[in-house]
């Protein structure tokens, strides 16, 4: 009886009695969701263009962030570190295309997935080898002060993150829709062999897409690094981005953002209002359960491509 009341009555009563707090939680959720979307974007880009679920995305975020912060610690100014980090990321994309993707062309999805797992292990070891296992605090001047707007607490940092994510998505959308390279990427995402047969150079496309995903990862790494300090645990944010991917669809950039917002809000509301009924800390599995619930109605995610199977 108690449990039923706690699940069906108390949360709503609490919400009704404290509307400002609800707004605060919702806004906090939206902004958290944006941080998840930043990471999910990298996954989506690679899946869209090379059909590979990049298990190594989290590690790539970590690796890019480590390079960036390592260069800053060696005394380089921020813009120089950023440019060099981008160069490193592009080099990494070239290496991956040459050593991993090319030999595995046309293999099944699960084989490519496994190859990215191998890549994740490799980058993990390599990153810690070069930059060490310590925490590297990262402060590039993003304001962190809490703001109180109309009785509701909002953090400046989260607002900046939202702005960054928004501009990134806008840039990517423009890129995919209005440039020749973007069209080529979409063609490759559709069918590798057909794209090759009309003359699209697969290899260069893959390098481009992995570089772009790497740059997105670098931005995500900088944002998360500013939040947590750059350390190994950053690669774990990839697990937080997975429900976003399921909900939004693996192949949709706007899906990553919308999915992120929904997961963020859902997660936080559930944790704050329904958490106490279950003993708390339900965020993790709730995000997946929420995504699963959506999947039951739309098995390919909200914006994902419907895969048509032919017998």
């Amino acid at each position: 009886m108690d449990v039923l009341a706690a699940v069906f009555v108390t949360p709503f009563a609490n919400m009704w009695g404290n509307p400002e707090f609800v707004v605060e939680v919702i806004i906090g959720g939206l902004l958290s969701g944006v941080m998840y979307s930043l990471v999910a974007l990298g996954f989506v880009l690679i899946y869209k263009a090379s059909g590979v679920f990049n298990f190594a995305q989290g590690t790539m975020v970590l690796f890019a962030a480590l390079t960036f912060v390592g260069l800053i610690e060696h005394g380089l100014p921020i813009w120089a570190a950023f440019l060099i980090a981008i160069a490193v990321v592009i080099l990494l994309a070239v290496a991956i295309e040459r050593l991993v993707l090319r030999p595995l062309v046309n293999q099944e999805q699960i084989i490519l997935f496994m190859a990215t797992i191998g890549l994740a292990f490799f980058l993990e070891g390599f990153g810690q080898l070069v930059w060490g296992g310590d925490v590297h605090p990262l402060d590039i001047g993003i304001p962190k002060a809490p703001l109180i707007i109309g009785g509701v607490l909002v953090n400046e940092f989260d607002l900046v993150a939202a702005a960054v994510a928004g501009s990134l998505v806008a840039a990517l959308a423009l890129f995919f829709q209005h440039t020749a390279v973007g069209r080529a990427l979409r063609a490759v995402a559709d069918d590798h062999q057909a794209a090759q047969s009309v003359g699209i150079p697969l290899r260069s496309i893959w390098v481009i897409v992995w570089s772009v995903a790497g740059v997105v990862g670098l931005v995500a790494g900088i944002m998360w690094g500013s939040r947590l300090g750059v350390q190994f645990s950053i690669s774990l944010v990839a697990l937080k981005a997975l429900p976003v991917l399921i909900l939004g669809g693996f192949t949709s950039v706007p899906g990553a953002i919308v999915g992120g917002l929904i997961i963020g809000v859902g997660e936080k509301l559930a944790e704050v209002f329904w958490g106490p009924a279950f003993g708390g800390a339900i965020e993790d599995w709730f995000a997946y359960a929420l995504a699963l619930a959506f999947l039951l109605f739309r098995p390919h995610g909200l914006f994902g491509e419907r895969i048509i199977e032919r017998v």
Partner: protein
Amino acid sequence: MMLIKTLLAVAAVAVALFGLGASTVFAQNEQFIPRLVYRTGPYAPNGIPFADGYADYLDMVDARDGGVGGVKITYEECETAYNNDKGVECYERLKNQGPTGASLVDPLSTGITYALIERATADKVPVVSMGYGRADASYGAVFPYVFTLPATYWAQADALVKYVGEKEGGLDKLKGKKLGLVYIDIAYGKEPISTLEKLSQKYGYTFLKYPVSAPGIEQSATWLQIRQQRPDWLFMWGWGVMNSTAIKGAASVGYPMDHFIGVWWSGSEPDVVPAGAAAVGYESGTFHGAGQDYPTVKDILKYVYDKNSGHSTRDKVGEVLYNRGVINAIYDLEAIRTAQGKFGNKPLKGEEVQWGYEHLDITSQRIAALGADGLMAPIALSCDNHEGNGKVRIQQWDGKQWKFVSDWIQPDRGMLTEMYKESALAYAKEKGITPRDCAKVM
């Protein structure tokens, strides 16, 4: 061709694997200590300084004194990455090394401690879980080979409540106040809950729990709740990235830092440095001093770093976790020295070191002789008291250093001993162990 090569490689691997478990050759007059460390993985920022401190202290003692009682101390590190099964593998591989096998083992992880307790007891190797692990193992009658000195999580929880009570003007003033606990939702984080709940009934405060799912990189929901409920005091039981995220979370909702006190594993440089200026005023429990201003730490600088052979860098010597590694080494070596007093100045077996630990008695004179005055407090163990009634102090971060802000606090030993005994006897019953009769043990 490819295939033949692969098959040959596999065969070579199989042969090589048979060499595993074989011990490296050690000289005869050496005492071996296996070192389970984590220098990689998510908890590396905390594991690295600890491992460095311990190793440096051992190197210093070998260089300055030629070992303990003339017996050189050797050690071998094994990477566990805070992983339970790797910890077990490291222990199994190293336990028979050295002329007399492993003299003791410091798991440095509550999970690995639990995994090793039974094996090590059967192998007669003392498990030293300094300030972590199973709190009820302090009742040595049921756990002859586990040592929880100087204080357990339950003791720390009680000490924190005492400190808070003092700050409020008396423990009776706690009635009606709200005490919160932010904790990581794994075994380690849940340890203090039973103690804090018991004390909430005793002193009349409201106990609020704020679990954070591991690894704790996303805590905004938790801190919004804390902002709503406004507990008067907040304790933290976190580890790794959860700590720094929590401190930043507290700053982001404007929670007063000097009312935010972490357990001793939530109070070190990797936790406060990423939060920057926001962390100033944050407090944590501890059982030892920080900084380089102790003769024994200065000796480390002199005998190890001046000779360019330290494991860390000079500026990191004296950090909280570094000194904790030093203290761990001091306890271990003193136990060996005590055991040598009975068994002679030779490499000792695990059971002999266990005797040494049970008769460990570090007095303030001994501390002064060690050059650790102020770094640690006196402690004495016995057969049924493997914790030693250690005391706790509170330290505060001022942006550059950790400074003591309280005197040594003695937790409620009567209540705690009862709690340990009760829990240990329940364990003994479940496992079919007969508790030792400490009156009969020498």
